[in-house]
């Protein structure tokens, strides 16, 4: 068990290093962070001066090693663009993203699970058809466009919720809806097929032969099995949402990690990009690990091997 967690941890680190070096090299070769730091109208001397001062003229490996060394000592560096400690910067933006991701996940769960379950219980019924058409449409609507339509709708026709910013809980309603809707199809379909599979399994037939029926059959016999794949997919979805809901944050002008990442990319703010990538990768790996552990807790076959 411990061995397993360690192995996964090592994998996570390896992945994080590979990816972060990849981005580092990429940015090093294609953009000029010095100009970002200096600004659009900056005169030549200033840019040259900055380049030298930050050491952008050194070989890429040396620069990366430098940065990595800092990280290992807990120093994630200072943002070129924001002139602020990256750690603080990320802390500030993370709140928005975490709240958004969690509420979006809630939206997904609240819509997708009941829909998927009722669809599985009554295949080919109107609920099933409703669920499937929801899934098909939600899959086809461009996320950013849905956001814009909601903004037009809510700015113009029903001014109930503010359409941009992240100041109050009300600001999170529309973005959560948009972000949550994007993973409804996947989760809904998985719930439906998963539960259908479980319901047609031999052990459910056994349970029925023992006298189980109705909600008892679903809750006490089928649900735990059907949850296994859902847990995994929810972890992945949450991971993606935490990994910067770039589109939603942009459309609704929220100062989350996704926007921070995009801005940092646009500004070649390498320390911020690097740290964000590191965080995204670790978050994702940790979440999938957590999902595996939850599944191991749910399923003795995984737990005991």
């Amino acid at each position, binding site marked *: *068990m411990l*061995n*397993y967690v360690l192995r996964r941890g090592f994998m996570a680190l390896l992945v994080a290093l590979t990816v972060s070096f990849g981005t580092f090299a990429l940015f090093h070769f294609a953009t000029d962070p010095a100009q970002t730091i200096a600004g659009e109208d900056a005169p030549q001397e200033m840019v040259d001066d900055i380049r030298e001062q930050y050491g952008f003229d050194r070989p890429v490996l040396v620069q990366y090693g430098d940065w990595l060394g800092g990280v290992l000592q807990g120093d994630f560096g200072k943002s070129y663009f924001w002139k602020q400690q990256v750690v603080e910067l990320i802390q500030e933006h993370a709140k928005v993203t975490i709240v958004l991701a969690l509420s979006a996940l809630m939206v997904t769960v609240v819509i997708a699970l009941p829909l998927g379950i009722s669809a599985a219980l009554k*295949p080919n019924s109107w609920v099933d058809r409703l669920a499937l058409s929801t899934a098909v449409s939600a899959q086809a609507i461009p996320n950013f466009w849905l956001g814009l339509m909601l903004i037009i709708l809510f700015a113009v026709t029903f001014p109930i919720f503010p359409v941009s910013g992240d100041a109050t809980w009300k600001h999170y309603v529309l973005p959560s809806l948009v972000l949550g809707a994007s993973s409804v199809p996947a989760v809904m379909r998985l719930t439906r097929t998963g539960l259908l599979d479980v319901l*047609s*399994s*031999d*052990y*459910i*037939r*056994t*349970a*029925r*032969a*023992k*006298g*189980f*029926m*109705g909600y*008892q059959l679903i809750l*006490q*016999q089928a649900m*735990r*099995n059907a949850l296994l794949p859902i847990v995994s997919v929810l972890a992945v979805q949450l991971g993606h949402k935490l990994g910067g809901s770039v589109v939603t944050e942009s459309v609704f002008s929220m100062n989350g990690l996704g926007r921070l990442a995009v801005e940092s990319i646009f500004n070649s703010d390498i320390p911020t990009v690097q740290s964000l990538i590191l965080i995204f990768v670790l978050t994702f790996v940790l979440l999938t690990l957590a999902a*595996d552990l939850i599944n*191991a807790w*749910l*399923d*003795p*076959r*995984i*737990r*005991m*091997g």
Partner: protein
Amino acid sequence: MSTASILDIQDLSVEIPTDSATLKAVRGISLDLKRGETLGIVGESGSGKSMIALAIMNLLPPSARRAAASINFDGSDLAHAGERELAMKVRGQRIGMIFQEPMTSLNPVYSIGRQLTETMTLHRKVSRAEAEKRAIYLLEKVGLPDPASRLKQYPHELSGGQRQRVMIAMALMNEPELLIADEPTTALDVTIQAQILYLLQDLQKELGMSMILITHDLGVVSRSADKIAVMYAGDIVETGTAEEVLRNPQHPYTQGLLECVPGYRGDAAHRLGSIPGIVPSMTGTIRGCAFASRCPRVVDACKTEVLPRKQLGPGRTYVCHDPDATRNQSTADLHSAANEVPVELPKTPGEKVLTVDGVSCTFSVRRGLFGKRRSLKALDNVSLDIRKGEVLALVGESGCGKTTLSRTIMGLQQPDAGSVSLGQHEISTLPAWQRARMIQPIFQDPYSSLNPRKTIGDIIGRPLVVNHIGTKPEQLAKVHKMMEHVGLPRRVFNSYPDQLSGGQRQRAAIGRALIMDPEIVICDEPTSALDVSVQAQILNLLLDLRDELDLTYLFVTHDLSVVQHMADRVAVMYLGEIVECGERRQVLTSPKHPYTRALLDSALSISPDLSVPAPGLSGEFPNPMNRPYGCPFHPRCPMAEQQCREEVPRPEIIDTTFVKCWKARTFSHQAKHH
């Protein structure tokens, strides 16, 4: 034991709508079961026998539709009872059920204890402790050692046999009056099958239950059932006591089916009977007799007229016009010509064509997400040789290593130690194409052994293409000739495997194996996935082809009746070792190894006058990862002594038979006096 009816089914039908048409799985059958009796329902796959079992308690798949005049279960009509009433009062309470697949019939995420006790606590006011007490009592009853600690275990920690025991205990939790067992032993090894059947028989007597035993295995039903109902194409074609039906079958189908069973006629080496054709489509109405298209006694009336159900005595019926004109033609008679000439016994043994010398094979296996790798010894110092023209049967239970051995012989698996030689050449030194021309396999499952994306013609001709043998037209001619050989009609040349029946597929697989003219054919359980009637066709075909093409077979199987029918020599495997090997007659009539003896005892031939023998072996087939010390068989051996537990037995030859057992001499001595 009272003679009152406990279950009376009148006019039960089951329909299953599919994409294209409605499948009529059960067509208006009626059944009657007396209290304390065992009714065996036999039939081949697709005959609708399991549907009856599910229909009684309305456990059919959601899409299926059930209709019945009445299902009278001890006074209450289950046909018209609501779902709630069935669930609350009947299922699991008064009728218990055991299913075929012990591996999937228990919920993998809940403990055995929970699954057992909830059966009791679900609809009755019983305390948990009481239910647990009952569970422990029953687990002990079904023969699981250390029952109290089992409650905490999960299904995956148990073997198939153990799970089936748990299933039985679960069905018995509420002392049901009727137990429905749907193919309860089909997925189990022979030795376990015997144990479970014996257990069921025992419990039924003790508890005074009635039982419906659904199976395809005539041997099983002959030993366990009081009465038999034979099903064909959704209808019951013949009923009666086991004795009556099996000794004096009236319906041509029953007759034909029995002729197909190897060993039914007693002597080993004659051709089996077979039923030509295939089961008609179960969609739509069938005019006249469903069996008419395959019946040797068919007359015009059979195809048009409604069938009479003929009553011969109380509970003894059959459905057939029974035309006088063809009274003396039976399925067996059709092949009488072949039957009169028994297949010759092998002549003097030919030269050795294949030698397996001291082969060992070890795998490393990781179990579960958190597990460590462990090694699994699949083959341990196996030596064997096959002579030209003979059929060597390799017998053993699942997990004994027979598949690994056959793969090793084909060169698909590299042994860790030892060697396999084909004639003069060691197989690992042969190039693939040369090896392929000398040795070819036939696999168990004709559904997975043919690439579903290729046509039959492509599949059969593929070895020629791969090895660049002959020109295109030559290859084509060869394929057509081979299709003729194996009895495939020309028009399936461009068909896909999905369009063929199981038997046809297996014929195609045989054709593919033989098109390279190999010396040796390795038949890995080639008939165990097939129905009895199809099995007979394939076995006949294999024997014919051997004679025609001068082939040598390594015949891997678990079925001793097939061994009896096919083999010249027999090798018995246990836990990766060959424990006994010799002439068929020698091995099967005077076994030297206690394991061979136990296998023979467990094989259930059709004998309605015998019951299921008491198990001679204790315990289960061990996990190959924990090989017992000393003789691997000692934990289950009734004769094991100190020496068996400590030392690996030395191989020896007794009466031309190779055997690996410390007690072989005493054992064979005893057996002779037995």
